């Protein structure tokens, strides 16, 4: 499958990835109209800092054994065996948030504005080949590569 690989040593914490993610899911072209403090629009990724003050990008891995999909009781969170992506269906989701509790890395969260769905990386499914976060990373800390496991 294709996965966003992370080299955290290259991460400068600029959060271009987060802005790109917000813009990608905004529904309108052009970053000029992006409201960075919007309650409704949230980045699927984030950059954490550890106790040594190092930046650690937190991106959905579309895991080979996804804790989220393995706890989903509505069928909304499903690992696609063809693409390897863990896909999320807003319509099916019952907002039980078992997936949030069961992501061992703490990637997932309920949406801030309504608390009715999960904020989840979709690999920018409708935006062509590479996710917008990767296209907008200035240091190459994140890149898409084919990996052997699905």
């Amino acid at each position, binding site marked *: 499958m294709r996965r966003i690989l992370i080299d955290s040593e290259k991460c400068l914490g600029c959060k271009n990835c987060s802005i790109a993610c917000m813009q990608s899911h905004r529904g309108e072209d052009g970053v000029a109209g992006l409201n960075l403090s919007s309650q409704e629009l949230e980045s699927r990724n984030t950059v954490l800092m550890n106790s040594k003050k190092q930046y650690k990008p937190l991106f959905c891995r579309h895991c080979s054994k996804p804790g989220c999909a393995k706890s989903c009781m509505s*069928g909304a969170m499903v690992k696609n065996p063809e693409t390897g992506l863990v896909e999320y269906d807003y319509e099916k989701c*019952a907002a039980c948030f078992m997936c949030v509790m069961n992501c061992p890395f703490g990637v*997932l969260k309920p949406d801030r504005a309504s608390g009715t769905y999960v904020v989840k990386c979709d690999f920018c499914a409708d935006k062509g080949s590479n996710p917008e976060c990767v296209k907008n990373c200035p240091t190459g800390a994140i890149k898409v590569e084919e990996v052997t496991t699905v």
Partner: protein
Amino acid sequence: MKHVIIGVGAAGIVAANTISKHRPNDQIVMISADDAVYSRCMLHKYIGGGRSVEALSFVSPNFFEARNIVWRKGISVTGIDTAAKTVSFDGGTETYDKLLIATGAKSALPPIEGVKDCSGVYGLRDLADATAIRDKAAGAEKIVIVGAGLVGLDAAYGLIEMGKKPMVIDMAKSVLSANLDERAAEVYQTKFEEAGCVFRFESKVSKVRSDGAGNLSCMILGSGEEIPCDLLIIAVGINPESKLLPGKPDKYLKVGDDSVFAAGDATGLSSSWPSAMEQGEVAALNMCGIETVYEECLAQRNTVNFFGIASVSVGRFLATDGDTLDVRVDKGRYQKIVINDGVPAGVILQGDISRCGFWQYLIRNNVNIEKIPRSVWKVSFADAYGLNQDGEYEWVK
């Protein structure tokens, strides 16, 4: 190889999917008393009218066709002959090479005098229960729910959405006592009360009475108090549907000879949706000859989401002697972490559960966080951040 799976709940469905993935040429037959695939965890949304039967399904509409699975629905299996390798039911038998028993559980019925002799008393376990409750509730005004756990409150929530004002009775002092401490529970109790629900704690139903026609008319509490009641919903737990199991499950979830396995609530092992899915997968892998050990998750874990307030509760959330307790409260948020000897033993997170999943990892794996030189509220996966060669995250020891 022919696999027969009894049950189309979480365990059965995951098992079928797993077998189909690993052994695409094997034959799979599923037999179920249910004639629809649905998620029990969403039945209250059906009662409340928010979802149709189709919308309760947790599989795609072509799940069976896409995997060439023969599904014999509406059939209750009555017996298993492990020597002849057959399962029998009213009107026929089915042979198997590998068998999975994923028959789930039934609502537990507490010893209430008179319950068996009157209509109007239901559990909330199956789609048939939910349909009966919805139909009966439409014309009922005096609805009582026994049990203020997750299922009881689910039922109350569905009924509130129907415009009803149920009474909820529990022997505990608060709602959701298995999942939340009293402070977190009170937040939900208040919301339910504002919606018209009435609670009676530290109470139990000892007797029910029917009118002349056998319909429920009133219930009597342990204290002797009589409460008029035309619909009673029992939500005090489950009893595993284990009568088909020839023995107790071993670490491979094998229950008899090498051909018979069990998964889900029927096993009597840890009972939750994720556990059932995990057991279904492990049993299926073993049925395919891929030796896999099931690791029982002992930690209590659940999520609660009512009235737009989400909570996560994992592990031992009540502190005892020797524990360190960290509590943080601010607007709409209550967070509590119980730590024992540097290791998180339990958390309750209410009102903000954003990116909280790593807590379950820390608790389940007894990870010591004492040496992380920062506030417990700042701890995250970043403090043990690792990546494997395929770019998947892994916790660094």
